[in-house]
C-alpha cells in the first residue's frame, strides 16, 4: 500500500526488565492527522521517539516513509518534522536567525518571513529565543518543525501554553497542511478536545498496548461509556439510550416530558477506557 506513511507491527521495547511497548500495531495514511492518546507512562514518548529514529534496541517491524528509522539517513530525516515537548534550545539566538538557520538545512524550505507571519511571530522575530513567552516559544517550535516542508510531522503536546485564539489558528494551519499538502501528522496530546477537533483517527495507548483505534465517534462507541437519559420523573445511565427512550414513550403513551439524552463525551469514553484497562491489568496481575 503506497499510501501508508507509517507502518508498525508487533513493536516491542524494554528498558531493562521493564516492558514499555508490548506489541504495538499502527498504520498512518498520507494526509492523515492521527492522535496518540494515553496516560503518562503509557509509552507514547518512547513510541514516537522510535518512529523519529532516536531510539534503538526495539524489536518488531517499523517503517516510516518506507525506511527503518533506526537506519535511515539524512535524505529521510529531511522529510520529517519534529516538534518536541518543552524545548529550551538556542536561548541566545534571535528567533528569525534560528528559523533561517534551520531552514538552510533543507532543499526547498518555506519562506521564513511568511512562516513567521503565519504563526504570528513577526513582531517577535528580532527577539532572543530565551525571552519569548511560552506561547511564542511553542509557535516558534512549530515553525521550526514545518519550515523544511516535511512529509511527516510529529507534534508532541503542541498547543500547551497557547491562548484560545492561537490554538484555533494553529488548528487551522494543521488542517490546511494536512489537506492541501498531504502532510501526515502524528499528534500526541492530553487535550481531548484538540484530538477530537483535529484528528481523523485516535489511538489510545495504555500500558504499552494500543487498546483501541478509530475515529472519535468509533472510539466513543467502542468503549460504550453509558449515556445518560433524563426526564421529568427520573434519570438512568444506560448503554442503550434509544431502547430506554422507546420504553419511556410506551410507558407515557406519547411524548416523554423533559426527555434529554446525553451521549458520553470523548473524554468520558477515554477515562472509562483507561479505568477498564487498568482493572483488567490488575485482575490479570493477581491471578
Amino acid at each position: 500500500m503506497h499510501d501508508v506513511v507509517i507502518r508498525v507491527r508487533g513493536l516491542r521495547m524494554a528498558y531493562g526488565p521493564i516492558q514499555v511497548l508490548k506489541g504495538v500495531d499502527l498504520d498512518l495514511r498520507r494526509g492523515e492527522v492521527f492522535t496518540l492518546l494515553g496516560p503518562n507512562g503509557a509509552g507514547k514518548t518512547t513510541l514516537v521517539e522510535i518512529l523519529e529514529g532516536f531510539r534503538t534496541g526495539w524489536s518488531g517491524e517499523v517503517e516510516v516513509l518506507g525506511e527503518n528509522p533506526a537506519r535511515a539517513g539524512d535524505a529521510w530525516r529531511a522529510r520529517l518534522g519534529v516538534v518536541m515537548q518543552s524545548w529550551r534550545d538556542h536561548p541566545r539566538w534571535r528567533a528569525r536567525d534560528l528559523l533561517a538557520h534551520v531552514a538552510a538545512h533543507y532543499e526547498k524550505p518555506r519562506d521564513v518571513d511568511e512562516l513567521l507571519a503565519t504563526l504570528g511571530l513577526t513582531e517577535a522575530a528580532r527577539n532572543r529565543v530565551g525571552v519569548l513567552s511560552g506561547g511564542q516559544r511553542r509557535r516558534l517550535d512549530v515553525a521550526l518543525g514545518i519550515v523544511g516542508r516535511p512529509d511527516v510531522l510529529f507534534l508532541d503536546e503542541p498547543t500547551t501554553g497557547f491562548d484560545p485564539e492561537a490554538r484555533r489558528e494553529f488548528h487551522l494551519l494543521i488542517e490546511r497542511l494536512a489537506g492541501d499538502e498531504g502532510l501526515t501528522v502524528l499528534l500526541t496530546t492530553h487535550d481531548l478536545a484538540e484530538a477530537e477537533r483535529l484528528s481523523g483517527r485516535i489511538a489510545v495507548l495504555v500500558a504499552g498496548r494500543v487498546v483501541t483505534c478509530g475515529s472519535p465517534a468509533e472510539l466513543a462507541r467502542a468503549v460504550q461509556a453509558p449515556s445518560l437519559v433524563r426526564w421529568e420523573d427520573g434519570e438512568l445511565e444506560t448503554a442503550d439510550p434509544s431502547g430506554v427512550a422507546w420504553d419511556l414513550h410506551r410507558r407515557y403513551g406519547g411524548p416523554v416530558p423533559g426527555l434529554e439524552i446525553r451521549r458520553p463525551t470523548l473524554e468520558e469514553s477515554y477515562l472509562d477506557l483507561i479505568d477498564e484497562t487498568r482493572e483488567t491489568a490488575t485482575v490479570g496481575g493477581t491471578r
Partner: protein
Amino acid sequence: MNATTLGLRRGWTEQLNLWSDRKELLNALVGTVGTYVVLVLFIGDDNVPGAPVSMAAFMTPGFLAFAVFSTGLMGLPMLIAADREEGTLMRARTLPRGIRVYLTGRAVSTLLTIALNAALVLLVAVPLAGVTAPATPARWFTLAWVLVLGTLAVVPLGAMIGSLVSGPKAAAAMLALPSMLLMLVSGVMFPLEALPGLVRGIAQFFPLYWQGLGLRAAFLPDSVLATELGHSWPLGRAAAVLGAWAVGGMVLAPWLLRRVRGR
C-alpha cells in the same frame, strides 16, 4: 547549502550571540588576558637559566598553547554539555546533517574564541613581556599551522568529553584537575628539562606539549634551543602528533555524538 558552509555560518552566529552578551565577553577576556598579566607580573623579568630570554617571554607561547588547549578541552565540553541540557544538541539531531553542522559550528566558534584570545594575549605580551612578533615568514607560517592544528587536535576530543558528561558543572569538575596536571608536565610554563624522564615521556603523548613547542619555535629565537629536549625544534613530529589527535578525534566524535541519548 552544504554542511560545511552551514556550519561556518552557524559558528559565526553562535559567536556573535555570545559576544553580544557583555557578561560572557568580559568573563572570557578577564579570564584569559587577566590570568596572563598576573602571571607575567608574578614571574618578573629574570632570564631563563642558560638562555638569553626572559621567563615571561619564554612562558608566553606556553600560555597561548594552554589557552588553546583549555578552550578546546574545557570551554568546549562545558558549552556542549550546556547545549545538551538546553536541547540544542537534540534539535541538531532532528535536522538532516544536523550533527555535522552543529560540530562544525562549535569548531568555528572555538576557533574564533582562540583567535581572539591569542590576539589579545599577544597585544599585551609585546609591551609587557618583551615578546617580539615571529621573525621570519617561515615562523609566521609555523604560528598559523600550529594554532590551527592544535585547535583541531583538541576540538573533537572536547566534543567527545562534552557528550559524555552529564552537565556543564560535571564537565568542569572532571576536567579541572587533569588539565592542570597536564599543564604542569607539558613544559608550557617552565623548561621541561627539570622533570624526570617518565613524566616527560607521558607529556609527549599529549597535544599540549607539541603545541607549546610549536609556538615557542614561532616566537623564540634559536638561542633558547639549549632549554629544549634534544636541542632542536622537531616540527615534523609536532605536526604528526597534533595531526594524529585531530584525525582520531574527528573520526570518533561524530560517531559518539550520534549515540547521545539525553536531551
